[in-house]
């Protein structure tokens, strides 16, 4: 839901999902970076960063395209002085609908409501959509 929050969905989440373009078997590489940055490893894909915020690393996301395809469609936002790419709300909806767990289904009405509002005004959430590349 972090990507949705950044695009104006009034929600909250207890962890941030980060999609990593690596095979899942290479998770050790990601955890090594986390350790180097002072984070704590809580599980194979879950870490607590130095500020104690939780991050969940994903190596695949079901219901949407490949990392490369989604990267091209991603929206770019400015966060903490960095440019960060996030899945557009419609792609988050597609993934949650596909996964279909109760907690994903529960988010759908709010995601759809905000998407409808943004669509009416021409998709202009205060994020910059990259023109590919």
């Amino acid at each position: 839901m972090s990507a949705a929050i950044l695009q104006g969905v009034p929600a909250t989440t207890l962890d941030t999902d980060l999609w990593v373009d690596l095979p899942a078997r290479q998770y050790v590489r990601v955890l090594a970076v986390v350790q180097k940055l002072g984070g704590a490893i809580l599980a194979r894909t879950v870490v607590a960063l130095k500020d104690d915020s939780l991050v969940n690393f994903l190596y695949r996301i079901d219901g949407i395209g490949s990392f490369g395809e989604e990267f091209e469609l991603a929206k770019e936002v400015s966060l903490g002085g960095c440019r960060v790419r996030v899945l557009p709300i419609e792609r988050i909806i597609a993934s949650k609908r596909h996964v279909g767990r109760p907690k994903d289904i529960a988010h759908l009405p709010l995601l759809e409501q905000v998407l409808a509002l943004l669509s009416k005004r021409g998709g202009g959430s205060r994020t910059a959509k990259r023109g590919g590349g």
Partner: protein
Amino acid sequence: MKKKFEIELKRLKREPGLDEHERILLARSLSATPQERWDAHENFLRSLGLFEHWKRKEFGFK
């Protein structure tokens, strides 16, 4: 931010099916920048003592 909020709120008044609380919530969120949204989200978690994962465990979160 206040001016953008007011513009957004005015826009949302034309939306059917939203009560006053929803309109304010959405207007605040939609008028903010991504950084402002993220800061608000983190502040919300902190205000409830839910930002640090070990504190969340105390509340029974996994």
